[in-house]
């Protein structure tokens, strides 16, 4: 198989085999997850020296630590002696990690500190500096988010994010105090990672149908009607966002009433109170925008309209593990955070009114892609093709909501 068997850029189709081909999956682990900047977490999850968390990069277990000097590191979570998974906890505080197989001990910055029998069994000949934990080649942060990349020659994180950073700032750079992350909620879905990621990247089309239970009064003819303020924007490099762009003359009150779901008074009051600060930091244009959904290539999805961030961890060709978080302004009052976190859970947690219905869709797509007959027939990505626009106000290419501009950016 070659690239052109799987996708056709001009005709805008993909083969269903991309969801079921295990050879392709292995290549993805090397070439996509081995070379991309992947989301590891948020600095708020490592609040003190010694704090650590365990996550995944592709199928690799990774240990993310803050050392005694406050510096953030990421290493493969595997002892160099026999490869045993060094850290068995999801998070905590520790300045050293001891493997429970033979007892090798590592510092939180990755150096091998000591091994049992160093003098008696190894004759003091073990070259300890050579046997530290395998570092993730590059670790960097963007406005609180921690990313890692296995490729030492990868472009800088800022180049990788490209124009997506301009949109990410709308959720990450609202306030001087920055953001914090709650979670994760974790669940398995029997689906290929790409159908999940593409859905976050660009699929506004499914909302009126797949999530129709949330809009029971919407007439059938309106379920796929273009939304007045919403646009799909393709910042290139595989990233995608769906945004609301509100008219300049709209007041903050009108803007809040239009964006998102009904909220109690104390939450509205807080959001109004920080509008000036947001406008000062982001400028007038972006203070009149909100991000509905989006994805950073390859597997960092988001539904910022309900403050949900998620990482879609691949677990074999037909399985993912979803890690879902809630992103909040760090300096918001506790009762506002509480309500917003509850909204995230009630909509896009695993029992949420939206999220519940997604898993079955993604599993069904993955299931269909296994059939010897069905997988030979391509899937259509043509919505809005040839109607992409450019604007000097927004980096990237624009499509209607809905448009498959971002799915084409993701696959083709």
């Amino acid at each position, binding site marked *: 198989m070659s690239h052109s068997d799987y996708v056709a850029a001009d005709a805008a189709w993909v083969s269903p085999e991309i969801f079921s081909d295990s050879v392709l999956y292995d290549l993805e682990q090397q070439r996509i997850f081995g070379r991309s900047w992947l989301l590891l977490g948020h600095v*708020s*999850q490592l609040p003190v020296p010694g704090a650590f968390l365990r996550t995944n990069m592709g199928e690799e277990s990774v240990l993310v630590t803050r050392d005694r000097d406050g510096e953030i590191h990421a290493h493969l979570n595997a002892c160099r002696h026999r490869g045993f998974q060094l850290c*068995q*906890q*999801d*998070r*905590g505080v520790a300045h050293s990690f001891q493997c429970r197989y033979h007892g090798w001990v590592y510092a939180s910055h990755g150096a091998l500190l000591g091994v049992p029998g160093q003098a008696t069994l190894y004759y003091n000949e073990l070259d300890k500096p050579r046997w530290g934990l395998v570092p993730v080649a590059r670790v960097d942060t963007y406005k609180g988010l921690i990313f890692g990349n296995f490729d030492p020659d990868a472009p800088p994180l800022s180049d990788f994010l490209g124009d997506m950073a301009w949109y990410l700032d709308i959720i990450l750079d609202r306030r001087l105090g920055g953001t914090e*992350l*709650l*979670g*994760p*909620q*974790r*669940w*398995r*879905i*029997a689906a290929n990672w790409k159908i999940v990621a593409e859905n976050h990247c660009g699929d506004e089309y499914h909302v009126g*149908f*797949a*999530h*129709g*239970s*949330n809009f*029971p009064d919407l007439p059938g003819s309106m379920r796929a009607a273009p939304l007045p303020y919403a646009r799909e924007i393709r910042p290139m490099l595989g990233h995608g966002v769906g945004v609301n762009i509100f008219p300049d003359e709209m007041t903050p009150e009108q803007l809040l009433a239009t964006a998102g779901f009904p909220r109690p008074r104390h939450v509205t009051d807080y959001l109004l109170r920080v509008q000036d600060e947001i406008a000062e930091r982001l400028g007038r244009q972006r203070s009149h925008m909100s991000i509905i959904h989006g994805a950073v290539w390859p597997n960092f999805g988001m539904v910022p309209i309900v403050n949900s961030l998620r990482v879609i961890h691949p677990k074999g060709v037909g399985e993912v*593990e979803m890690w*879902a*978080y*809630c992103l909040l302004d760090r300096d918001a009052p506790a009762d506002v955070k509480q309500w917003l*976190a*509850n909204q*995230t*859970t*009630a909509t896009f*947690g*695993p*029992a949420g*009114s939206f*999220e*519940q*219905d*997604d*898993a*079955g*869709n993604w*599993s069904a797509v993955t299931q269909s892609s296994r059939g010897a007959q069905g997988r030979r027939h391509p899937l259509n990505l043509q919505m809005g093709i040839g109607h992409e626009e450019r604007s000097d106000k927004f980096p990237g290419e624009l499509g209607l909501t809905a448009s498959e501009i971002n799915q084409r950016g993701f696959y083709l």
Partner: protein
Amino acid sequence: MNDRSLSRIIAVQQWYYHEARLLDSRRFDLWLQLMDQRVHYRMPSRAYLQQGDAADFSTWSVEREIDVAGSLPLIDDDLDGLRQRVGRLQTGMAWAETPPSITRRLVTNVEILDEDPQGRLSVTSAILLSKVRSGERVIFTAERRDQLIPSDNGFRLLDRYVILDDVVLASGNLSVLF
């Protein structure tokens, strides 16, 4: 066990069987009527964390692993939240339960831990919930910690805290009530 405590535990068990039957027979409207106006229905998420002092079993508690600082619960509903959860099922577009899953709830290990002077009971129980959908079966097991208030028809549920035995949910979603 004296007669009073015996009849009380039987009453609680019967109420749980009744509740399970309402849910398994998809009478979510009648299930809602078992809720107190002030009900709080919560399911924490769980993490793999360092155990307490290995030599001291009293520090090995489940509480260490749930609702830890910075975590997000899986469900956190008041009565409005539960009504919305049930109401959504009636739209015909709640695809995860349209058509409804085939479920069976087995409630066991019922133990009354405390009774306050007003008769409010603190009860722990174990639930095994089987869900069959699209030819696949998922099994959940959990502990439920409830606060029950006596009422004319048995009890009303004031508080439920569902501690799933999963750290990472194996099930794709959580579309069923515990």
